[in-house]
């Protein structure tokens, strides 16, 4: 079974600075997908970024980018130019066809952006 670990329960950053959230996972599969979801206090889960394991290039979405290290099974999220609206719980998630399309989530990292 796959596992996803987020070792930072809480993090804080000053507005306009850069922060990196860590995620590691364990799997014996070669083809899979990784995601970062954001959950603000409204409870709405919002997809931030996704990475296909077969792609070597790290995914980027505006201020959000990932550092995908397949051999190390590491998938960190970098948020540049942090904004107050980035304050939320961030979840790392793993999915693959052999796991029946379910997503396995980490425990989450609460990010607070301070003015």
């Amino acid at each position, binding site marked *: 079974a796959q596992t*996803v670990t987020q070792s930072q329960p809480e993090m804080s950053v000053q507005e306009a600075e850069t922060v990196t959230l860590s995620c590691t996972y364990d799997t014996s599969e070669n083809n899979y*997908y990784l*995601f970062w*979801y954001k959950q603000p206090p*409204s*409870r*709405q*889960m*919002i*997809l931030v970024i*996704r990475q296909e394991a077969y792609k070597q290039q790290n995914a980027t979405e505006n201020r959000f980018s990932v550092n995908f290290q397949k051999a190390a099974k590491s998938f960190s999220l970098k948020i540049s130019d942090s904004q107050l609206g980035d304050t939320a719980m961030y*979840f790392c*998630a793993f*999915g*693959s*066809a052999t796991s*029946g*399309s*379910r*997503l*396995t*989530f*980490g*425990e*989450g990292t609460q990010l607070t952006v301070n003015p």
Partner: protein
Amino acid sequence: GAGVSQSPSNKVTEKGKDVELRCDPISGHTALYWYRQRLGQGLEFLIYFQGNSAPDKSGLPSDRFSAERTGESVSTLTIQRTQQEDSAVYLCASSHRTSGSRFSYEQYFGPGTRLTVT
């Protein structure tokens, strides 16, 4: 277009009562998922529907939990004889999935139903 919707937004029930939680997926999304999120924790997978069949029910925690789906539309999660440990936010997600073994791409989530069992 409209996103995933869930009702009710909040539900308070007495221990031992049955509850029904509803999910309306995004139109055209063939795959539907239910997750449970306990306070301060990540999401636990409960059940997955492809169309109206459930190929993966492995996450349902007990036989008090059941779910059904009408065609490629509404799904209902039913919890019978609720217990206090059932208190959580129940999240529904949907995704577009092609036929065969192609992996469902990203999942789109509803706002969840917060269930409190007193």
